[in-house]
């Protein structure tokens, strides 16, 4: 029987982390080198954790499927990173950052974790500046801040539109330093295909060398998964092509619980889908909504070009419905409204799944130069992709999946329900609740990796009894056999449909039934469709090539096979949570005006799902959420 114990320290909220750091067991400096930690993933969380634990003296092995740690998708984050520095003197504080994050998460996150996140946020900025990250500066030489959605203070630090890149390169530099010192052993082009547990503890991983196809066993005293989110279950998302849920899913199959899988974030301003060949969606910064006005024609299926639609035949629906916030409503509202209006037949563009984001009024008011200064690079990016000129014709945008708040369930120490198995960054569930605020993903990844995990992993390792387990242990042999049998099976099917073909179908199913709006009927229908699709995959997929060299189709097939299983958790979770909160909108749970309606009485808990077998119904465990500091309230943006 799995028992959920969040291990939240006693004491007042603001002292929990300090007390906890004092309370945890420590590992003597000279003993640290006796422990080996395997870190999977080299994004912000993974790279920073590996580097920091190596600095502390642990033996660290780091794994990435990319050719180099620097490719991880953290690199694509544009906007910035939050911290409670209060340099602009606008009333920010640790408590306010904590408060905003809990509220922004629509009261579905764990207060103690969020408070710790806000506490270490300032240290992250200190550390990153010391690493030589070229943050934007004022003319006086001080660090610049900008404002971001969901907050009324300016607390976002940024490096042009490439903050994620710069922070990742900082962590990557730290990792490369440890690699050169020999304290981190790096495995590139190496993908996790199973987690090995012995006596209920995580003791290692099985990997596939993506160049030689070799299956390798790695033993360690603790395993850290920093393997990102599962947004690619939707096929089309703003995630990188190789992002996948496999590591988390394989861990789940080995006993780790998966928390809140239905919490996915849909970003409102992305470039719409424009063809069935499309592989990926591109996000346009949220800042565009500061000056752009969103509208659709008042007439259904109006095929006239935007310029020929007179002013009084345009419906500025956000301004109409939310007069006080207008185009600046939070992400989830903006996304949902775009979907509703397109579903009702008012959408524009070749597919009808797009709305206009119009700058003509702003250009008229401020002049083209001012708009160019603010958004020049974004307009250029848009032009490059669509060949349209946003200075002359309105942009077309549509929401797209871009972050997943759900993830492996972890306690306050970031340990999953499998002792010795940790999950950090987007791979865990803890800090963002049902909706993540802009510029908080980078903060959380680095908080976990630089400051939290290195101070909690010792609590587990200190008690660990030394044993002589090595890779010849039967558990490793069995895990390797299972994993490679699965690969052989995939290669042997030689069916008629490509992996992408199945992935696309899965994505469409998930997008339609578990995307921006979910209903009981739709979810139930999807739960019926999914096993059929899974069976079709396992009988008709065509994976060319062999398993003993570089085979991208095989890699993909292995990941899609996991998505096909994992998707069921999302659907079940969405079905169970018969309330609307944050990114999760259940059609059955809305106010008379059509706004999301939370049900705190029934659903103020974390859903943690236990795997019971493919196609078997998973078991739901509930971690009740208690709000001591931030009073529960319904959001309103009218």
């Amino acid at each position, binding site marked *: 029987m799995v028992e959920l114990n969040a291990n939240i320290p006693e004491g007042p909220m603001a002292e929990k982390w300090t007390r906890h750091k004092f309370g945890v067991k420590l590992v003597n400096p000279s003993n640290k080198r006796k422990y080996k930690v395997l870190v999977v993933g080299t994004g912000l969380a993974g790279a920073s954790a590996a580097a920091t634990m190596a600095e502390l003296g642990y033996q660290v092995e780091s794994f990435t499927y990319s050719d180099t740690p620097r490719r*991880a998708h953290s690199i694509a984050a544009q906007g910035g990173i939050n911290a409670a520095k209060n340099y602009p003197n606008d009333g920010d504080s640790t408590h306010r950052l904590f408060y905003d994050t809990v509220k922004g998460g629509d009261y579905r996150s764990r207060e103690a974790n969020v408070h710790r996140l806000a506490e270490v946020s300032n240290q992250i900025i200190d550390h990153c500046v010391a690493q030589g990250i070229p943050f934007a500066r*004022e003319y006086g030489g001080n660090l610049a801040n900008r404002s971001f959605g969901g907050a009324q203070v300016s607390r976002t630090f940024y490096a042009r539109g490439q903050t994620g890149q710069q922070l990742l390169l900082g962590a990557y530099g730290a990792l490369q330093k440890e690699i050169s010192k020999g304290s981190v052993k790096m495995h590139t082009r190496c993908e996790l295909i199973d987690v090995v547990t012995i006596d209920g503890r995580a003791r290692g991983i099985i990997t596939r060398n993506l160049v030689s196809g070799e299956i390798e066993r790695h033993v360690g005293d603790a395993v850290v998964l920093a393997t990102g989110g599962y947004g690619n279950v939707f096929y089309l998302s703003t995630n990188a092509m190789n992002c996948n849920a496999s590591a988390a899913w394989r861990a789940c199959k080995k006993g780790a619980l998966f928390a809140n899988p239905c919490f996915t974030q849909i970003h409102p301003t992305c470039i719409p889908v424009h063809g069935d060949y499309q592989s990926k969606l591109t996000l346009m910064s949220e800042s565009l909504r500061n000056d752009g006005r969103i509208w659709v024609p008042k007439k259904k299926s109006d095929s006239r070009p935007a310029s020929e639609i007179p002013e009084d035949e345009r419906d500025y629906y956000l301004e109409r419905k939310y007069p006080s916030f207008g185009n600046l409503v939070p992400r989830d509202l903006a996304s949902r409204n775009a979907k509703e209006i397109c579903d009702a037949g008012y959408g524009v563009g070749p597919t009808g799944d797009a709305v206009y984001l119009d700058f003509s009024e702003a250009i008229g008011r401020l002049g083209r130069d001012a708009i160019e200064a603010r958004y020049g690079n974004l307009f250029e990016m848009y032009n490059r992709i669509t060949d349209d000129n946003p200075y002359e014709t309105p942009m077309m945008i549509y929401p797209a999946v871009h972050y997943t708040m759900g993830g492996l369930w972890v306690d306050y120490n970031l340990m999953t329900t499998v002792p010795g198995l940790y999950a950090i960054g987007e791979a865990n569930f803890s800090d963002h609740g049902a909706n993540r605020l802009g510029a908080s993903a980078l903060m959380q990844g680095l908080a976990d990796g630089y400051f939290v995990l290195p101070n909690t992993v010792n609590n587990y390792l200190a008690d660990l009894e030394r044993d002589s387990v090595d890779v010849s242990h039967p558990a490793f042999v069995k895990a390797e056999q299972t994993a490679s049998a699965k690969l052989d099976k995939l290669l042997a099917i030689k069916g008629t449909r490509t992996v992408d073909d199945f992935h696309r179908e899965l994505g469409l199913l998930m997008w339609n039934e578990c995307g921006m709006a979910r209903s009981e009927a739709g979810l139930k229908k999807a739960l019926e469709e999914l096993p059929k699709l899974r069976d079709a995959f396992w009988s008709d997929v065509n994976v060319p090539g062999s398993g003993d060299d570089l085979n991208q189709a095989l890699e993909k097939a292995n990941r899609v096979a996991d998505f096909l299983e994992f998707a069921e958790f999302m659907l079940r979770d969405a079905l169970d949570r018969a309330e609307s909160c944050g990114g999760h909108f259940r059609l059955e749970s809305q106010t008379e005006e059509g706004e999301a309606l939370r049900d705190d009485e029934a659903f103020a808990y974390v859903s943690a799902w236990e795997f019971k077998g493919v196609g078997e119904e998973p078991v739901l465990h509930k971690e009740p959420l208690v709000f001591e500091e931030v009073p529960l309230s319904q959001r309103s943006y009218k």
Partner: protein
Amino acid sequence: MAEKKINLTLNVWRQQAGQEGAFETYQAENIDTNASFLEMLDVVNENLTCAGKEPIAFEHDCREGICGSCGALVAGKTHGSHDRSTLCQLHMRSFEDGDELTIEPFRADAFPVIKDLIVDRSALDQIVSSGGYVSVKTGSAPEASTIPIEKNFADAAMDAAACIGCGACVAACPNGSAMLFTSAKVSQFALLPQGAPERASRVKEMVETMDRLGFGNCSNEYECAVACPKGIDVKHIARLNREFIASRTRKKK
């Protein structure tokens, strides 16, 4: 976004690990001009798979021009254009119906071919390993606002730091040199006070590693800067040279 379909002939480099490679010709038919270059390759690969052939291996990940994974020489140009964009940002509307394109991997001695269009660029990581960072232990940093940095310097450091490590500079260089890559990192830290304590050792070690790994020399021909998708300027190479000279002349304490 005008809809248009084009047909292309592709001469693609195919190579298995440890074997000789050769060009093979494929037809890319009915390609939407709004598709990206990599999406065009996806279509070709789907067709190859359905025809029972092995798809073309090419590296890619973010498909929005920041991860640095993708890259191939298309019609003689790294990333297919010299328009400050990566291969994933190149769209098919840049090509005409009936075009014949040669697609080959980034070639350099320091970048051995792994398969088809995929090369091993780990040498670039080794250059970074030998000094492309500021040695600061987590937790030991002073308050971030302690050292103000002149905006010009912060901006210039950011210009250098924009490198995505794609290796186009090495591929474009007639000498297979990694000077632009190395100089970008050296430059970033030379411009910031945080980089000062390790300034001399950083440039020495990084240049030494670069030499050891079989990259060529810079002959100041600037092909790298034309190829760079992020517009990294050759002024960083000049700064690298200055830093290198200074590392020798600076007084030892």
